[in-house]
């Protein structure tokens, strides 16, 4: 079972934000999308979540997403947006409960507290959302998303986490915590697609990486194949050196100053 995007083409007026980009994400894996600013990462995420109109097709567990109702999609995939703002000041636990909207864990009232505990914020349950720091707000939103698809596999079908820059406001400790949560979700049979900026964190956790640049897919594959000097330097337009330090030999990316 997989999340398959085929020939996704998106135009913003005369500008082509994505040019016939395809991507297959498999359940059980963490698939990362990386690339420079404006490369089309968030546009691709917008197509996968059904937020943006696009040409091409996106199928989720074999079903065309444009033919499904919002609640049908919500039962199969949860989306963490970049923006964790909230118009009104709800208590934290109520925000997490909104993840149950689709009724996916409706008969499990304990799920929101468990989800909050999973991101390490159980003691914040009754606090006001607006009093949280940016990073805490992002983790509460992650708890909401987890509550929505609490079991990674339901009725024999994998469920999906779509994360748009999930660690953008987090310190390094919480970056690792959130990536562990995402990887655990995938290891338990669910699927994860994450837009990422930090290449080293991506190398550490992603099973497969899509590199976008200028609306094109430059490369797609496991970290060791994709994260190379040539591909990254071409994508980001700057000198980058990839090494694989022991003991794990995970690719490690070092920038080189443009001028010495």
């Amino acid at each position, binding site marked *: 079972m997989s999340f398959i995007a085929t020939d996704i083409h998106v135009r913003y007026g005369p500008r082509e934000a994505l040019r016939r980009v395809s991507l297959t994400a498999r359940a059980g894996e963490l698939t990362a999308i990386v690339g420079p600013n404006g490369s089309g990462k968030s546009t691709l995420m917008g197509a996968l979540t059904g937020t943006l109109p696009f040409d091409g097709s996106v199928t989720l567990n074999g079903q065309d997403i444009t033919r499904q109702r919002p609640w049908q999609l919500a039962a199969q995939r949860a989306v963490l947006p970049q923006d964790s703002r909230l*118009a009104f000041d*709800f208590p934290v636990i109520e*925000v997490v409960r909104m993840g149950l909207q689709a009724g996916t864990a409706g008969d499990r009232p304990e799920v929101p507290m468990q989800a909050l505990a999973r991101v390490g914020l159980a003691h914040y349950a009754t606090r006001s959302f607006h009093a949280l720091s940016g990073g805490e707000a992002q983790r509460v939103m992650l708890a909401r998303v987890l509550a929505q698809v609490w079991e990674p596999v339901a009725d024999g079908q994998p469920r999906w986490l779509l994360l748009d820059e999930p660690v953008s406001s987090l310190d390094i400790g919480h970056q690792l915590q959130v990536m562990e949560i995402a990887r655990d979700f995938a290891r338990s049979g669910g699927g994860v697609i994450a837009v990422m900026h930090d290449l080293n964190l991506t190398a550490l956790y992603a099973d497969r990486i899509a590199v976008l640049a200028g609306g094109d897919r430059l490369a797609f594959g496991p970290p060791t194949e994709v994260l190379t000097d040539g591909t990254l330097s071409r994508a980001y337009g700057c000198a980058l050196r990839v090494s694989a330090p022991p003991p794990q030999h995970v690719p490690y990316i070092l920038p080189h100053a443009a001028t010495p």
Partner: protein
Amino acid sequence: MASLSDIALAPSRPARLHLWLAAALVLAALASLQVGAADVTLSALAGKFMRGEALSPLERLILWDIRLPRLAMGALVGAGLAVSGAILQGLFRNPLADPGIVGVTAGGMLGAILAIVLGGLLPAAHLARTGGQLVPLAAFLGSWGATLLLYRVSTRGGRTSVATMLLAGIALAALAGALAGILIYMADDQQLRDLTFWNMGSLAGASWPKVLAAGPLVALALGAAMTLGRGLNGLAMGEATAAHIGINVQRLKTAAVLCAAAATGAAVAIAGAIGFVGIVVPHLVRLAAGPDHRTLLPASALLGATLLTLADVIARVIVAPAELPIGIVTAVLGAPVFLWILLRRKGGLA
């Protein structure tokens, strides 16, 4: 230790709030029936009822044809405006939205002014057919026309842009204001007086036909509004996220606009432009009970009905035997309360 059945039986916090507000509404209603220019009091009427005596024709007239329809109209208008405000604040994700924002008030005002200034030009036969209710009818049509136009302008390819609606609403209100200005320029002194009073709002023209015309519409809108709570809660996270948790966002937006336009349109038609209820009441409820729309919507209906009923009592008593337009009372009481809320909250609104 509380047993499980105790927990089930004890009313939850929102339920308790609703009970308190319902009790307040009953008290306000009794006050409204008690007070008036004529010396007819509830205790006297209750005494007569206990002794089995019939009410005098005058007492029946005052209670049944004057005070009861006025009470019903005040409650309808207050509930309608307050719930519309709560819906629109949720829809626009902005605590400063009020029913005026979707052009309902401006359109209603233009309709009313058209009827007041140009109504006399209509052939007498047509005029008779409106049963002397040309102004409310025109106000209702004006408010609905404005809302539908606004909705059309801001909906492209089946998607309604809330931001476009906000901007177009401002443009439409300016246009309606200018057209109203032309009509005001043409108006004679009596028409100007009628206009001014319409703009300040009043329940003085209360009658059963008006209650029966507006009542079902407001009731329908309020009933439908009570189903929007979960959706509006989700909308607080933005339209995209609301859709991602399974809400049909376009249907929610359409339903929200229809409910607000129906309730406000009916209220404006029968009572004129009454300010501040729509914006202040949802704020007061949010301060007491938080932003959950499943509580906010019914509580706003109850509090709006209560406050407008009380404002009407004040409007009738304060310069008796004459009475103040109720819009003056709601603004004189509402504005300081609103300022007080703003000063008291250091962290800003929302």
